[in-house]
């Protein structure tokens, strides 16, 4: 396995882990710092695609400006670290339906052969 494939797996797995931590961290400042890590990993993925300009722009604009803005706002709010009062499973039916729809869309785009009656006749605008 060459270095680029290895780096792709590193960056994408770190991005997924950090984005899960964004929504599940208790402290909102931790959420934003994990979001910064997600952006940095996305910049790494862009570098692997050899679009160095886009990667640097992502760092400058998203990490350097947008996330700093979020960090300022969150730090100045007096947020108490709340515990979840309701369980996450409450959202399972509708959330599960939406996840299934997204999954179906991704599959039908990636592999036209899987759903045969979409492969030639479907028109994307």
């Amino acid at each position, binding site marked *: 396995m060459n270095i680029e494939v290895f780096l792709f797996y590193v960056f994408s797995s770190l991005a997924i882990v950090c984005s899960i931590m964004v929504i599940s961290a208790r402290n909102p*400042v931790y959420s934003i710092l994990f979001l910064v890590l997600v952006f940095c990993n996305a910049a790494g993925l862009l570098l692997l695609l050899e679009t160095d300009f886009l990667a*640097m722009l992502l760092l400058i604009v998203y990490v350097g400006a947008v996330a700093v803005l979020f*960090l300022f706002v969150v730090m100045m709010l007096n947020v108490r670290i709340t515990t979840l009062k309701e369980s996450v499973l409450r959202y399972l039916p509708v959330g599960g339906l939406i996840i299934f729809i997204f999954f179906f869309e991704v599959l039908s785009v990636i592999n036209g052969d899987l759903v045969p009656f979409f492969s030639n006749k479907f028109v994307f605008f």
Partner: protein
Amino acid sequence: MIYYLISWILEILIIVVPLLIAVAYFTLAERKVIASIQRRRGPNTVGIWGLLQPLADGLKLLVKETILPSNSNVIIFVLAPIITFLLSVLGWAVVPYGETIVLADLNVGILYILAVSSLGVYGVITAGWSSNSKYAFIGGLRSAAQMVSYEVSLGLIIISVLLCAGSLNLSQIVLAQEAIWFIIPLFPVFIMFFISALAETNRAPFDLPEAEAELVAGFNVEYSAMGFALFFLGEYSNILMMCALTTILFLGGWLPPFAFLPFTLIPGPLWFGLKMALIGFLFIWVRASYPRYRYDQLMRLGWKVFLPLSLAWVLLVAGILVGFDWYPAF
């Protein structure tokens, strides 16, 4: 493969170790120059002319006790000086010291330096917040807001220079100054860049967020020993990085002032070092000469004076280049 790794590590060390020595002796140079401006001596006890003073400072900071405040957020508290120092050294990877003497000859070199300095804001914010102290928090927020504000005008001024140079590659920007250094046609832009660099590195007269008398040293008040040493090293490394950027963008990098014989005997990297020393001296000189800006005056200067001026300069340079058809060759 192993040869490649060893040569790579050696290249990095050749840049980082002299950088750290330069940062240490820059602190001594600052104290001596400020002392001369104030008609006194400065440190002259520790070595001949005080030359071992940075070693004494380093030793003191090394053996001092590291304090972790009990109410602070320990992980981020420890990470903040690490991030600051790491980013301040990372920017040096793209600096060209000579004709082909550069660690990473990126085609987006300028954007890399801007990205690294944008990331440097995080070290300051997280240090101020994680200390869980009102003074540190306010100092950190003020310092970060100041850095972000002056990065805007810094970016626009860099665009003015890039219009004349024609490439984002730092070596190409230096080579574009073979005819004439950019400080001569773009002299007002150089002045604005220098002042924005002073404000970006939290340096006097824009050092309200970290002045000792104002906010009890601002965002690094809770840090002792190694944390403070890392912040200190990071700040001075940022200053040297701004000096290097100024010489690359305006003073012609490693190029000699005139291309004929007595000047070309001095090698390129030595010219680079001399020009950096000149700009560094200018940084120290300004520190000793001017009173401090109040914070609202400082922010007003960044947004209401430098931003419109640098934007106007971008339009002027672009208009002249398009009007006379003097596009740079790239």
